[in-house]
């Protein structure tokens, strides 16, 4: 774009933010130059938000410096940052829907006259700002009457009031459709050409490639590097984000043994055009007995959303499902359970275990719920089931009366698995069953998944760790931007192939 690189308007050097004992950011550098759109990339938890907060004064760095316009700063908060030309627009629009567009734009910078507000001037100034955004709306209309996209643009408009040198956009496109995204990009480009430095955070790789000039990649709170967008193939970016080189991924051994599926077998669960607005685009998927189907994709690509439709956790608004060839509506988890479909959520604490109950109660919960409260499982049968799974899964402590909240993450996960295995499901959908647990427990759960499939169960396996998915899956469905983009055979799949699909193929 420009031949000579202008000096950065924002320079973060060696910024470290600690939430003891965790280092959320560890010596990260970031350089924003005027007149560029700079993408900040990384998976969830990589430290993107923390970095933005360190810059705008929400978090105070324990080490490192923040230099804005050549002066070292420690902002006291977003308002202070804004006063010095660093404005932030967050993912969810933080505006007052009940106020007018003009009031929202000029909030905090209202023109005054005789100790009161100068309403006419306010509207006039707001109109000027709106025109710059290419927005043709009445400044006197109430904000709530406009679409989310317009509200987003108003939020950006508000951020650029006054002397805005740096504009931070955190996931601005997540709730916009294609045309609206295009409009936003037009605005971003025009702001860039006016010399504003824009920091752009997005999960959508296509968008990042379309609009950004340069990018900084973070992983686990550390800086991976700064790259010129045009010089970095998408596949390489994905590798930087997930943090494994091709060689390491390729080395992962295959444990999935192929049990030949008879030709013409009926899928256990077949879905056609299943979808939910704002959640995941319609997709087809066949799930067979004895098969592990892996779901691969970046966080936010729609893996969990897909799983929730398969299991009735969310209700689909389009498409149909067939269980063993028979059309079925998966209305809620209970109907899905009735068809032998079990689902463990990725949110183990929030949607999985009941931490105030005992191991015993947690294990029999689903089985008991299925029977209804009036037919309690006989105590002897309960003890038998609980003892069997504690033994089989190696749950520690091996005490049925231990409160679940006193167990480690890995053991909680095993209890959750036991709860579903006790219902003897035919299809088991596991969303991130190995996240946040130690290596030993992880290996045990992987082994268990392979064994269950070998025993004839159909398993859907979701993990952010590509190597795990590759190793366990017979088939892999790849998701990108809330859409199922490909389905490949797990046997012959190479990591490069999957990474390519995740990154969007052509972009490389």
């Amino acid at each position, binding site marked *: 774009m420009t031949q000579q690189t202008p000096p950065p308007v924002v320079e973060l050097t060696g910024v470290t933010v600690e939430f003891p004992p965790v280092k959320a950011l560890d010596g990260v550098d970031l350089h924003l130059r005027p007149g560029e759109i700079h993408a900040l990339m990384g998976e969830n938890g990589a430290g993107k938000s923390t970095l933005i907060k360190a810059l705008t004064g929400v978090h105070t760095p324990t080490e490192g410096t923040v230099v804005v316009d050549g002066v070292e700063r420690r902002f006291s908060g977003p308002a202070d940052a804004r006063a010095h030309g660093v404005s932030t627009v967050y993912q969810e629009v933080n505006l007052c829907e009940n106020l007018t567009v003009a009031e929202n734009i000029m909030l905090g910078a209202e023109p005054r006259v005789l100790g009161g507000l100068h309403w006419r001037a306010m509207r006039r100034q707001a109109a000027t700002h709106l025109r710059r955004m290419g927005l043709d709306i009445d400044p006197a209309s109430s904000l709530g009457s406009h679409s989310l996209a317009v509200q987003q643009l108003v939020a950006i408009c508000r951020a650029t009031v006054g002397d805005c040198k740096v504009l931070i956009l955190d996931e601005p496109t997540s709730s916009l459709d294609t045309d609206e995204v295009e409009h936003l990009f037009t605005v971003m480009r025009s702001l860039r050409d006016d010399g504003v430095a824009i920091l752009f955070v997005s999960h959508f790789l296509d968008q990042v490639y379309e609009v950004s000039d340069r990018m900084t990649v973070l992983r686990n709170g550390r800086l991976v590097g700064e790259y010129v967008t045009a010089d970095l193939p998408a596949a390489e970016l994905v590798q930087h984000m997930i943090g494994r080189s091709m060689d390491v991924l390729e080395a992962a051994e295959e444990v999935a043994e192929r049990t030949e599926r008879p030709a013409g077998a009926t899928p256990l669960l077949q879905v056609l055009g299943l979808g939910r607005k704002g959640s995941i685009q319609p997709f087809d998927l066949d799930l067979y007995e004895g098969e592990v189907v892996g779901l691969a994709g970046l966080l936010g690509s729609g893996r969990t959303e897909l799983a929730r439709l398969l299991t009735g956790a969310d209700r689909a608004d389009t498409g149909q499902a067939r269980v063993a060839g028979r059309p079925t509506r998966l209305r809620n988890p209970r109907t899905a359970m009735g068809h032998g479909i079990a689902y463990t959520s990725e949110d183990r604490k*929030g949607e999985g275990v009941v931490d*105030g109950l005992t191991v015993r109660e947690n294990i029999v*919960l689903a089985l008991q*719920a299925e029977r209804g409260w009036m037919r309690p499982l006989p105590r002897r049968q309960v003890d038998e089931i609980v003892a069997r799974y504690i033994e089989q899964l190696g749950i520690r402590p091996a005490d049925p009366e231990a409160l679940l909240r006193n167990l480690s993450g890995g053991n909680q996960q095993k209890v959750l698995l036991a709860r579903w295995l006790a219902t003897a499901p035919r299809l088991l959908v596991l969303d991130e069953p190995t996240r946040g647990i130690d290596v030993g427990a992880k290996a045990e759960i992987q082994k268990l998944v392979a064994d269950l499939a070998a025993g004839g169960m159909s398993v859907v396996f979701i993990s952010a760790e590509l190597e795990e998915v590759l190793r366990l899956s017979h088939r892999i469905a790849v998701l990108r931007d809330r859409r199922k983009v490909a389905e490949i055979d797990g046997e012959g799949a190479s990591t490069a192939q999957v990474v390519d699909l995740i990154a969007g193929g052509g972009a490389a």
Partner: protein
Amino acid sequence: MRDVLRHHLFWPVAALVALLVANTVARPGFLAITVRDGHLFGAPIDILRTTAPLLLVALGMTLVIATRGIDLSVGAVVAVSGAVALSQLAAAPDPAAPGTVLRAIGLALVLCLVLGVWNGFLVSVLGIQPIIATLILMTAGRGVAMLITGGMITTVTSAPFKVLGSGFWLGLPAAAVLAFGVFAAVAYVVRRTALGMLLEATGINPAASRLSGVRSRTLTWTVYAASGLFAGLAGLLISADTMAADANNAGLFIELDAILAVVIGGTALSGGKFNLSGTLVGALVIATLERTVTVLGISPLVTPLFMALVVIAVTLLQSPRMRERFTAVRRRTGTGAQRPAARPDSTEVTAG
């Protein structure tokens, strides 16, 4: 001894014993029970009788609180129940006929069940916050009772109905036999079936329970309906005691006493784990406390203050944080050195 101290019922029971001791000191014959005409008489028996309506209301309240809810409407339901039953009796040609009495009781209970179902509908189907949903009936219910009684205090004479309030069964006050009987039956059902566990799961983690196939909505609906029914029964006991239906004052503030009984009994308002035996002790503590005020001759001016102080003391002793601090102090002074910190909620609770 240590296990006794750690038991979740220790402090409520200790409070109850302390109150009884205070009463006995003030009036040496306090605990004496005499037999007259084959019936038991004495202050402890009176306490059982006055506990009865509160116990029923607190029973429903415990189940509702277990699902993270609260039912503020029980006082109004008590008033509605009494109003319906007594107006029925008053309108009948012979208020003492068994058929009339049974119909009045049946009608009152059915209506209260419907009111409970209404609360359950607002909370479980419409998703209105329990405190708001039941607040509607809390205020509207007294209006309904007022309509039924026509704004008057309906008084009736009906010997069979009066038995519910001041009669005796098996030598004990009928109200107490009924209330404790219902309480025991419900406690048995809750712990013998899977109802208790499913209620607790719903209260602790509604999202996880739903994904596990628990019919949380039906369960929630059921407990509000039950709470309405039990409050209706309590209303019958109260109105049968006075034989007057007072739409404004019957069951006034009983919802607060019931919530208090639940809390004193060690069930947290945040829902989840609940403790019916604790609620029983809690209801007894409150009834005894009211009695103590008269026995000690405490001036009506300071009665609310006195009651508040006792309640604060019991709830503080119940609170996990205070208990931990208490244990820590004892550990420092060497009396409890080998014991781990108290974990009050780690005890499995069986009610009854």
